């Protein structure tokens, strides 16, 4: 279960020269990402950081198998990705819960789709509901929860499906600043507790620094390209305003013309 980080990292995801162009109405071509190559190691926490409209969400959707790249390819454990699959769990910015289902039923979604027997399903769901700190809310409906709690449901749902890769698409973008920081701490805690390969997309450099093993910075105009990367070799749990973190933040800000 517990891999020591750093020793013999195994390649998990490999993006090879991925490009994607969307065709808008009027046959207007909008190149979204161009020639993105990226390696993600097993159990690495990778943050893809860039301003809005830089193609980072599209990159994530390609890894999820929801979009097919025009050129290049993506492999997972050496196998090319051809579509979505339960080996990758996705967490969406706008939560995407079933409004007519309880917290438990939402968390059980993936298991139910794969016909996992009911008692096993309940057990797994309960484990992850506890993990995200929602015990006591199992029978609540999404509209009875705050934004932060809804996203916990989204995270528990993704984990319950036992993916080896977690894809998070600006998961805290709709939360207020305080809840957002709290959710970052929770995310770090959960990741330490149950190690997974994580690709986390955000436009917030502080969030990236707090969470990442490695940050990939993307350029702020279309088509998006990888500008540079930073390894964040800081001990966990981290502090948003620790000297080491702020020093790295300044270094990143000084080395890029991006407004972060």
């Amino acid at each position, binding site marked *: 279960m517990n891999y020591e980080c750093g020793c013999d990292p195994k390649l998990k995801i490999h993006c090879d020269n991925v490009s994607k162009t969307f065709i808008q109405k009027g046959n207007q071509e909008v190149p979204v990402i161009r020639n993105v190559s990226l390696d993600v190691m097993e159990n690495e926490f990778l943050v893809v950081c860039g301003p809005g409209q830089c193609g980072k969400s599209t990159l994530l*959707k390609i890894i*999820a*198998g*929801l979009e097919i790249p025009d050129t290049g390819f993506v492999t997972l454990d050496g196998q090319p990705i051809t*579509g*979505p*699959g*339960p080996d*990758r*769990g*996705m967490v*969406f910015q*706008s939560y*995407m819960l*079933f409004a*007519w289902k309880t917290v438990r039923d939402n968390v059980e*979604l*993936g298991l139910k*789709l*794969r016909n996992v027997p009911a008692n096993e399903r309940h057990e797994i769901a309960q484990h992850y509901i506890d993990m995200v700190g929602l015990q006591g809310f199992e029978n609540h*409906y999404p509209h*009875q929860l705050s934004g932060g709690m809804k996203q916990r449901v989204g995270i528990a749902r993704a984990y319950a*499906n036992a993916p080896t890769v977690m894809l998070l698409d600006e998961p805290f973008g709709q939360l207020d600043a305080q809840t957002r920081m709290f959710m970052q701490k929770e995310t770090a805690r959960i990741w330490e507790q149950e190690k997974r390969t994580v690709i986390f997309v955000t436009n917030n450099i502080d969030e990236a620094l707090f969470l990442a093993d490695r940050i990939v910075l993307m350029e702020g105009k279309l088509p998006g390209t990888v500008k540079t990367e930073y390894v964040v070799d800081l001990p966990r749990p981290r502090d948003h305003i620790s000297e080491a973190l702020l020093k790295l933040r300044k270094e990143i800000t000084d080395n890029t013309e991006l407004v972060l």
Partner: protein
Amino acid sequence: MAYQKVEVKKPLPLIVLPYISVIAFFGLWEMAVRTGFIPDTLLAAPSTVVQTFVDKLSNINPDGATLGQHAWTSIQEAFIGYGLSLLVGIPLGLFMGWFKVVEGLCRPIFELIRPIPPIAWIPLTVFWFGIGLTGKVFIIWIAGIVPCVINSWVGVRMTNPTLIQMARTYGASDWQIFKQLCIPSALPMVFGALQLALTYCWTNLVGAELLAADSGLGYLITMGGRVARPDIIVLGMICVGISGAIIGFIIDEIEKKLLAGIRR
């Protein structure tokens, strides 16, 4: 989250206003006929209509059936036709919304039939089924099926596309997405269709009975015209209005119960 219901007291004039307008309406109507301002050959006074109502409860003259029998005919036809239109229209609309093959097959024919007013089918239905129950049920079915198909179809089409993507990342099949995501998402629109279709059905039923029938509330109105009895005409119209309102109210209640059940 439970919110405490706050009772807002309406000022007294606002409470009595609707009653005043209703009383004034019928009062003026009664006066206009009584004083001869409107001749009683053109319009019956409310009091006369009430007399006719009491009389028609047991008297089958001059149109061959009591009021209760007419109402029963209409309600029977309406409910069979309405039920059939829901039974066919809602599944058809749901399937058309999700499965491109069904949409491709059914849409052209549906679009051809849709703009034809259901009443225009009457001459054909008289050929096919005569003037009995079946023909009317057919007309009502045609009338009710249009809103059922459109609402269910649009309801499915309005399913949040990101929710569909989410379901795909969990490995959901097309059929699973349709069943577990599209149908629940479409339900509010489908419930909207229940009311809409009922209104269409009821309106077209009376229209059909006006033209081809041997009993029913629409037939009562036609017969009132043939025997020059404005009181029967007005009585028929009021009955159509009141029964339509009652049925609408019942459907509304059923809809609320169903929605509450689904939310739970």
